[in-house]
């Protein structure tokens, strides 16, 4: 009888422990799941408020131009350097491989196609995620925690129109232009590197490179960076505007802006490449 009672007690206790352990196991994913859904829900509301603010006049052209300068012109040196480095590396690495397979003549085409179709757009997207994403996240985050955003709203100025819409639009407009700069520097430095190994005129290099290139090889990959611009702008502004706490909150806003926008840029790139290949072959 005592043995039976001990058995029942042991079963109840182990059952309780197992269920509490299982509960603990389910609590963490449940919390994560909820917070992810909350984040997307808040992002959706943020986007709807942004679109309303951006579409209704008056428009903030002065601030838009200032942001285009901040995001576009001031990122140009870094983008040019990254594009140039990509061109040099592509030329060095590819040349060796192509020589081995006796396909050296294809080097200009390989460099041109690699740069304009993928390297230029994705490098521009990731570099702008870092430079501009961190900047926007930290700036808006700092304005939020020091009540500057509230002060703007209290002065009857819509911060979504003045701070957010201008930054997002500037990102959308500047990304394709910066991509063109990265493409140009990449191809040019690809030619320089190639010429140092085996002299070839720029004209011949470009003729060989672009011989089989179509507009559909150039336009869609360049224009897809408008989507990258939208992602970088919206995520950085969103993370900045939902900042809470002091300096730690601002730091988190800056870091999460970079991390999340880079992640979404890479994801969008995969989806857009598939889409471009489906539509334009």
């Amino acid at each position, binding site marked *: 009888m005592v043995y039976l009672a001990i058995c029942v007690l042991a079963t109840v206790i182990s059952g309780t422990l197992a269920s509490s352990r299982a509960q603990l196991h389910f609590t963490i994913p449940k919390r994560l799941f909820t917070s992810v859904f909350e984040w997307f829900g808040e992002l959706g509301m943020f986007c709807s408020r942004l679109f309303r603010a951006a579409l209704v006049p008056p428009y903030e052209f002065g601030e838009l131009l200032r942001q285009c300068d901040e995001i576009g012109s001031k990122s140009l040196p870094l983008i040019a350097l990254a594009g140039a480095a990509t061109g040099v590396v592509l030329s060095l690495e590819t040349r060796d491989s192509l020589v081995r397979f006796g396909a050296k003549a294809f080097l200009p085409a390989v460099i041109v196609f690699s740069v304009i179709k993928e390297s230029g757009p994705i490098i521009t997207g990731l570099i702008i995620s870092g430079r501009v994403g961190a900047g926007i996240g930290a700036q808006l985050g*700092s304005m939020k925690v020091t*009540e500057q955003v*509230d*002060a703007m709203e*209290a002065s*009857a*100025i*819509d911060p979504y129109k003045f701070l957010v819409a201008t930054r997002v639009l500037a990102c959308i407009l500047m990304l394709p232009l910066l991509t063109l700069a990265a493409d140009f520097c990449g191809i040019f430095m690809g030619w320089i590197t190639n010429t140092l190994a085996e002299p070839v005129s720029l004209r011949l290099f470009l003729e060989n490179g672009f011989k089989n290139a179509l507009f559909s090889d150039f336009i869609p990959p360049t224009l897809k960076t408008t989507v990258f611009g939208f992602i970088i702008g919206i995520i950085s502004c969103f993370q900045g505007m939902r900042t809470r706490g002091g300096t730690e909150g601002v730091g988190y806003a800056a870091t999460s802006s970079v991390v999340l926008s880079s992640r979404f840029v890479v994801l969008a790139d995969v989806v857009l490449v598939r889409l471009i290949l489906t539509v334009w072959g």
Partner: protein
Amino acid sequence: MSDAAIAIRDLHKAFGEQKVLNGVNLRVERGETVAVLGRSGGGKSVLLKLVIRLQRPDSGSVCIAGQEITKLNERQINEVRKKIGFLFQQAALYDSLTVEDNVAFPLKRHTKASGEQQKKRARELLAEVGMDRDVEKLPSEISGGMQKRVGLARALALDPEILLFDEPTAGLDPITAAEIGRLINDLKQKRHMSAIVVTHDVHGAKAYSDRMVLLHKGNIKAEGSFEELQSSKDEFVADFFGYGSRW
């Protein structure tokens, strides 16, 4: 009844489980300055933010010059906000703009004045608060008291009918705090504006307010003149004003 500058009725606000305001009723007549006092974390700043709708109440109504603001759309609320000036606790100056540009910022957005006229007006406002010298400096280059003055000049930029002050003297030395108090009094005499001043400074509030209200546990616990409140039979009220006045 409806033409009070500010009329707050049965205002409720909670953050999660924490009830901050629990049925607040407050009426501020035109030209009247009301000081709202209370313990830290008692919902005084939240009350101000609800008046200018930087936050939305859970229930209740806020009328500004007879207009119910809780259900207005963004365009409509911005029209109401132009009638209200707000001085933030930490001044909340735009840190990338100079002192002059901070004051000119609302003028640029809401008036058709030329750049020169905006500058002139900004300098006039800065002179009014005794800040006409350091107009080219950035907010980080001036003291806390000076930042409050600039914040006040910015709050006055659109000639508001109502001023809201969130702890105008917090963190300032007694002399600067007294100067800010005098400034509020001067503005009251000159402009005949209605104002709500949220503060801990009982003595300062006594100098510039027409009426004091004590916010406690999300509701108005007592209201009246300083002397009335100090001699209140309620132990908490008498303690608050007795203790506050000793400091």
